[in-house]
């Protein structure tokens, strides 16, 4: 899934004084970006470009991994064996996506342990959407439809990111992500078309709770986004937050009609002149609260991650010890 406002990190002071050599390298780099060239792992790149990418890719990876938690909540309670198998496959995909992304970030010279350490230590962020609870089975469908839908919209432009290992990971992820969105819509459609009144109400309730957080996934308005301009310049980001959000609203409002649900926004209205749907103001106060660690589930999510990591330590160590012993045995033989 899921990059969002991954440019919500702290503003960094850029070094004012640079050596002539550095300035020349930077110039050559900017020229390559202008040509639309892809940057590979061992190519020279400005330190700030490297740092920005490490932050964005690692936070994207963390989001995939933490994103497994709200869905894992429903594995044992999926309504049918088919839905359970689908959910397990989706969660496994998220783990895989996290892994592709960690690997892409590692090409920039950061280690997996360093990244995980930053997440567990609360220094690295993950998508704020996962700090909301999954209260009913309908939430799982809505996550597929809206949350994965928003993620796809964010991620498709990243397949053209200037940093090639990231772009390649995104191609693979986007290919798999489409299943996530479709299975979610399918699950909701079954409830809306064949379900009981209570099940339909459950779907509407889930839409009501996830709609606004899904819109927040595109990040703050471009006018307030801290890193947007530089990231656009470097081809790390290709389309602005506001444009992507509008595209998402336009697409999902039509899909909602097929489902027979409504979005919890009284100001949602087709604008003939703009040829887009107008929508009401987003509660950015809530967004910053959740990003800042005060969402409904921040503490629970991080605690679950740390526990899983700590509980698995003996397995990682035992596997490594076994491998070392085997290698010694081969040497001796």
């Amino acid at each position: 899934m899921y990059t969002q406002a991954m440019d919500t990190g702290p503003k960094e002071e850029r070094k004012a004084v640079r050596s002539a050599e550095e300035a020349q390298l930077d110039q050559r780099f900017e020229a390559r970006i202008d040509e639309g060239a892809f940057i590979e792992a061992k190519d020279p790149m400005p330190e700030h470009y490297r740092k920005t990418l490490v932050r964005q890719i690692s936070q994207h990876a963390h989001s995939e991994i933490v994103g497994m938690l709200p869905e894992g909540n429903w594995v044992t309670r999926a309504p049918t064996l088919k839905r359970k198998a689908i959910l397990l496959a989706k969660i496994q995909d998220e783990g895989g996506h996290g892994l592709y992304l960690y690997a892409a970030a590692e090409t920039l010279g950061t280690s997996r342990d360093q990244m995980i350490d930053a997440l567990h230590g609360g220094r690295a962020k993950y998508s704020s959407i996962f700090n909301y609870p999954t209260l009913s089975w309908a939430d799982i469908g809505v996550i597929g439809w809206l949350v994965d839908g928003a993620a796809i919209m964010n991620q498709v432009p990243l397949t053209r990111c200037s940093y090639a290992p990231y772009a390649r990971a995104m191609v693979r992820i986007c290919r798999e992500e489409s299943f996530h969105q479709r299975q979610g819509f399918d699950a909701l459609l079954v409830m809306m078309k064949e379900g009981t009144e209570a099940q339909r109400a459950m779907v509407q309730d889930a839409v009501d709770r996830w709609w606004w957080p899904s819109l927040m996934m595109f990040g703050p308005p471009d006018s307030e986004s801290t890193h947007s301009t530089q990231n656009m310049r470097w081809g790390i980001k290709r389309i602005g937050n506001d444009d992507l959000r509008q595209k998402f609203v336009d697409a999902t409002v039509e899909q909602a009609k097929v489902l027979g649900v409504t979005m919890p926004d009284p100001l949602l209205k087709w604008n003939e002149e703009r040829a887009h749907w107008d929508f009401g103001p987003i509660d950015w106060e809530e967004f910053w609260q959740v990003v800042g660690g005060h969402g409904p589930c921040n503490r629970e999510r991080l605690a679950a991650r740390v526990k899983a990591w700590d509980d698995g330590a003996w397995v990682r160590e035992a596997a490594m010890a076994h491998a070392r012993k085997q290698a010694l045995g081969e040497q001796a033989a």
Partner: protein
Amino acid sequence: MSAVTNEWPLWEVFVRPKAGLDHKHCGSLHAPDAKMAVQLAREVYTRRQEGTSVWVVKSSDITASDPGDKGMLFDPMEDKVYRHPTFYELPESVNHM
């Protein structure tokens, strides 16, 4: 901060999509040994029948050309157009050879 040495080593993964095609690099993963690397490569890179065979190579065992040598290594081929069949203009009647 955890020491880097605690990490499982990094492996590069190559997958043959189907019989008759080359193995192609598709990504990397961490694994304690070769056997586990193959097992994990299957989980990570062939969840949708993307492969019929997997190779894994320790990343540290790969020797790569230096990106800085790109010009020196590969540019000299630029002016050797006579190495391509299209360089030769033949009479129409024999142009299919």
